[in-house]
């Protein structure tokens, strides 16, 4: 059983939405051999303490990630473009979370 499961099981990334309207947040991963099992395992592991109202599971192999070696090309160019930050505007008084 253990061997077979280990052979068939793949890793799934788990995203939990804590409240309706909020974004799903990555919380970790689970092993599972099909999507139903992935969803149930995610429920068992990550929503035991009332954390969620919706779960997404995605096969880890389906996620496309940027590579560390591309970091320079990907992220450095935004370093000196301060005009991309909305710091040149006067903030209306009393507004928060901007």
């Amino acid at each position, binding site marked *: *059983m*253990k061997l077979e499961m280990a052979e068939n099981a793949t890793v799934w990334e788990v995203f939990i939405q804590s409240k309706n309207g909020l974004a799903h947040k990555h919380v970790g991963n689970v*092993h599972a*051999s099909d999507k*139903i099992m992935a969803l*149930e*395992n995610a429920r*068992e592991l990550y929503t035991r303490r009332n954390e969620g109202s919706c779960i997404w599971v995605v096969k880890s192999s389906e996620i496309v990630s940027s590579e560390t070696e591309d970091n320079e090309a990907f992220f450095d160019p935004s370093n000196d473009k301060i005009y991309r930050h909305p710091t040149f505007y006067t903030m209306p008084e009393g507004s928060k979370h901007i």
Partner: protein
Amino acid sequence: MSNLFKYTLRIADRSLILGQRMSEWCSKGPTLEEDIAMSNIALDLFGQANGFYEYAAQIDGKKSTDDLAFKRNEREFFNHQLSEQENGNFGTTTVRNFLHDTFNFLFYTELISSKDETLAALAAKSIKEVKYHLRHSTNWLIRLGDGTEESNLKVQKALDFLWQYTGEFFEMDEIDYEILDLEIGVDNKKIKEKWDKMINNSLKEAKLKRPVDGYMATGSKKGIHTEHLGFLLAEMQFLPRAYPNAKW
């Protein structure tokens, strides 16, 4: 012993004993995820048992919930013989729970409309968990039944063996009839048709053969059990009996 007390006790005992069986899987599950899933189910069942024991203790007026769980002997337990059956391999546990969960789901569905407000409320609270348990065991049954040749063989074997313990679900004795007449209890016979339908659908999807009804075990309503319950109780009750004043 009042009939309502005994009726409530029967429901509580089913959850406690199956919960104890499920807790035996803790740290021994086939995968980390499944280990946690089974421990969660054990805790759900203990929670349900606790609710019904509290009500039973209240009706009784003398015994505490702990007295009911830990200070009764084998012959004073009224859980179905199915719930005390050993875990066996993961497939055996899956089949046992699937048979139990299907019954339990239908039983609580009926109990929700009980005229006894406490029982109705306990049923309404429990059914959310039971729905999940049923989903969990049914999905595993399908996965294993419709899995490899070996997994199919193992669950079919478990099903053929455990089938004899399903007759008890639908038995009615004088207590059941009295509680039913008061519109408090559930007509177990009425559940049978729905149970058959659900079981047949799931077995079909799992590519398993429904065993032919043969010898059916009976006796738990009178406290008669298989040899397994005594060992289970010995382990479960040892601590509170050896150290009666032990505190957490």
